[in-house]
């Protein structure tokens, strides 16, 4: 059996201009498909990226909220600590002042005590001098009662000594009175 030879009937050949246009259209189609594919992949990636960022933003938002609460608490504690520090420093100043005033009073009291001691010593000295004056005058009176038994010159000398002693005692007493006068 023999096959009949196939004979293609020769058709009209496409014009060269149409072939070039078809080629350009094919290139354009491929390029458009490529761009579309790229855009599709890009969109998917951006969507995934956006979701990750949103998730991270939520995490940080929760952390910020937590930190804000902690900050508010810390600020409250800081304010309370400042108030306590202010109260403590005011109290320290008060105590330092009280200590200083007590120290002043103590020194003033000591000085007054020293003064009183001096005055007491002076008063004792004056009292002693006045006592010696009185004793001398009593002795002199006794001598004068028996004046004929003593030398007149001795009596006059003793009288001068007693008068001098009494004058000194009197001066000391007046000085003491002036010191005690307010």
């Amino acid at each position, binding site marked *: 059996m023999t096959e009949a030879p196939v004979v293609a009937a020769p058709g009209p050949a496409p014009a060269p*201009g149409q072939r070039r246009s078809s080629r350009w259209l094919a290139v354009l189609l491929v390029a458009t498909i490529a761009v579309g594919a790229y855009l599709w992949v890009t969109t998917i990636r951006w969507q995934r990226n956006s979701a990750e960022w949103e998730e991270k933003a939520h995490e940080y938002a929760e952390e910020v909220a937590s930190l804000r609460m902690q900050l508010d608490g810390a600020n409250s504690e800081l304010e309370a600590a400042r108030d306590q520090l202010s109260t403590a420093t005011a109290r320290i100043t008060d105590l330092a002042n009280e200590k200083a005033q007590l120290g002043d009073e103590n020194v003033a009291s000591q000085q007054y005590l020293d003064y009183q001691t001096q005055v007491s010593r002076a008063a004792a000295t004056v009292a002693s001098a006045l006592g010696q004056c009185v004793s001398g005058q009593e002795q002199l009176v006794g001598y004068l009662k028996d004046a004929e038994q003593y030398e007149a010159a001795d009596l006059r000398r003793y009288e001068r000594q007693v008068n001098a002693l009494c004058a000194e005692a009197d001066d000391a007493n007046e000085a003491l009175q002036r010191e005690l006068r307010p």
Partner: protein
Amino acid sequence: MRSPVRRRAGGALVVGALLAGSLAGCGVLPPMPDPVPADIVPSAPADLSPAAGGDALSPDGFDAVERMAVRIRNVGCEELSTGSGFAVDEHTLITNKHVVADSKDLEVSTYDGHDITVGATSTAGLADLAVVRTTDPLPSFPELADADPEPGDPVTVVGYPAGGELTVTEGEVMGTTRDPLNANLGEVLLTNAPVEPGSSGSAALDAKGRVIGVVYAKTADDNSLLVPLSTLQDMLADDTAFTPAKGC
């Protein structure tokens, strides 16, 4: 009817334009996103700095100007008086000559009530100034200013008016004047910062907390007189300016 040549040229033009548009569009196509980083928190905040004034904090809540002031009790042979003073270094106090005059014993205490042991005391011959050396260290001391203040400059006085609590008063420099008490050589400063007996020896400070003078008197119209900084500096620089104080 259009000729084939013109149709071909038109088609090529359209295809070329579309191709050029496509290629131009590639330039504006969005890039692929970068991967999301695991941690975006910066290691140290760039614009965060310590709070203003943080370096002025003291260890116990008192200001530096309060910490350098001292109260001076002059125990005389017959009477008691009080005055103020301030530290210029760890073991040196400045006060007035009349605060330490006729003294049998000087007792110094700090802002918080601590007693400071006193060593030698010396007084200036040409100004109402005295230097007291201390055995114990003083808690704080200020800087001296660069120059005397000008009229209108603010002034802060830190001391113990009337021997009472540590007090800070403020005013401004009014100018210079001749010393009405003749206790100082040259002119003295006049300010309107309130002072009282017992404030003598207080430090007068400028706006930066630096010493500009030493309070030594109060005028009849309630202004205060200061030994100026320049006089203090001259006296401190002169080895012969201060002589040992005579007790009572």
